[in-house]
């Protein structure tokens, strides 16, 4: 590639970054990351590989650059028309660069009657863009969606995987401010969906959810913990896949903690040990059937969700 086009912003991982391993010894912006080719190669062969390829490029770069589509077409032996048709068909794909934070406002029926359009208008007013656009400083992209599947919590806004429920127009400024200063980013990987769960004590079946202490915009899971002769409360994020927590005492990382139910004071302990570090697992009952187990070692992300008896999922 001798021709150097201005494609600044194409690769958010490496464009102009001095330490990018893919840029070494290259002048000017690179046409595309070698990672493209990697992604494409991973998915070739299978019939349905196209959407998976595009999804991965979209996840990594935030949007589908025309050059990326051409590359995909070329490498996978499809015609550009087909690739372009798929890319424009699904709303998950964007052909325009998106901002750092993706704000989705639900305008489904339930959210609509609960005042979703007013929230959308307020967001449009504050961000000074209309739905589907990106702010000039590339901070926010605003989009409307038709249903997020959490109608009872409406109106709902989702920013970078964080759900904000029962939003009022007065809360919008605060939410945007929080998003800008950095919500702990919840990694969204297509297969591991982030969703809120409600859990109860495995012994007394009393709900452990604490709506007065929301984490990630959801009621937290409140338990009592004991370690180093200290005894206090611990609030865990109610979003499955989010590791945010809050506690009375700082729990030193890598220490094993005993979990107790705040209602029946029984220790939450099962027979299982963490598959990643060997510490005992803490079982909790998921509302609707099933068991979630989390590792009792601070900092270990070992967890297991068993919904084999599930009714609602």
């Amino acid at each position, binding site marked *: 590639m001798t021709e150097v086009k201005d494609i600044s912003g194409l690769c958010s991982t490496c464009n102009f970054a001095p330490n990018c391993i893919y840029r070494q010894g290259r002048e000017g912006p690179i046409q595309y990351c070698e990672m493209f080719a990697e992604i494409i190669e991973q998915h070739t062969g299978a019939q349905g590989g196209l959407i998976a390829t595009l999804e991965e490029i979209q996840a990594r770069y935030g949007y589908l650059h*025309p050059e990326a*589509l051409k590359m995909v077409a070329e490498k996978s032996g499809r*015609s*550009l*028309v*087909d*690739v*372009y*048709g798929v890319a*424009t*068909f699904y709303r998950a794909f964007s052909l325009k660069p998106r901002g750092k934070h993706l704000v989705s406002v639900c305008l489904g029926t339930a959210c609509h009657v609960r005042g979703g359009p007013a929230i959308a208008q307020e967001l449009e007013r504050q961000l000074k863009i209309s739905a589907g656009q990106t702010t000039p400083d590339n901070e926010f992209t605003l989009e409307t969606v038709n249903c997020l599947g959490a109608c009872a919590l409406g109106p709902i806004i989702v920013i970078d995987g964080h759900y904000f429920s029962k939003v009022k127009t007065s809360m919008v400024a605060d939410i945007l401010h929080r998003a800008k200063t950095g919500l702990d980013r919840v990694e969204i990987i297509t297969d591991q969906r982030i969703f809120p769960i409600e859990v109860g004590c495995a012994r007394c079946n009393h709900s452990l959810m604490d709506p007065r202490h929301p984490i990630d915009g959801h009621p937290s899971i409140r338990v009592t913990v004991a370690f180093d002769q200290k005894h206090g409360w611990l609030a865990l994020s109610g979003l499955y896949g989010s590791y945010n927590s809050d506690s009375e005492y700082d729990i030193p990382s890598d220490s094993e903690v005993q979990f107790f139910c705040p209602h029946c004071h029984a220790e939450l302990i099962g027979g299982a040990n963490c598959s990643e570090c060997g510490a005992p697992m803490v079982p909790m009952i998921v509302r609707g059937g099933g068991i979630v187990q989390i590792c009792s070692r601070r900092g270990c992300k070992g967890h297991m969700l068993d919904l084999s008896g599930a009714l609602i999922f």
Partner: protein
Amino acid sequence: MINMKLNGLGVTVEEGMTILEVANFYGFPIPTLCHMEGLSPYGACRLCVVEVGDGPRARLVTSCTSRAEEGMIVRTASNRVMKARMMILELLLASCPQSKIIQDLASKYQVRQQRFRQEHEDCIMCGLCVRMCEEQMMAKAIGFRGRGEKRSLGTPFDIKSEECRLCGGCIYVCPACQLRCTYTDPDKAICGGCANIHPPCYLKDKFDDMMCYMDPCVACEIKRD
């Protein structure tokens, strides 16, 4: 060989024939817009509906995409079929009132009213041009983009495609814009300017548009006002 009943007539046909082919073979006319020999059946225009089955279980199917089956009872011009066909024509006419082909069909099938707002679209999404481009011209230069209301036809990114050889095949088969290109007679031309003739008409002052099937076209000048 398959035995079936076509408009009350017992017929014997070869296996694998579509109902449309059978009806044409036995001389029962079925109107079509999106069907063309040499292109794969698509079933987009719905004009070729026929009634299959008997009594309350009879259903309307597109004859271009359904194969003849043993013991099938087909009616190509029953009341129900004619009613459906007229409605489809009325709808097509509303989306593309300027198309000569659709006008002719509408008049032939006694569509005497227009109850829908005229949209003056330049496309009925029949996909003939896409199939022509892919199957006969082996180019795959144009295709469908987007979905729902925003579904449209054209090249990726709306720029001239590297695959397109400007063969004009898509204009040739299009039922909505067939009369746009008047070829060598630029005075009467209502196309957006064709690149097939020399000098290409898009270079002349009169035609500074791109090819009409790629861009808003002049036959739809009505739309542009």
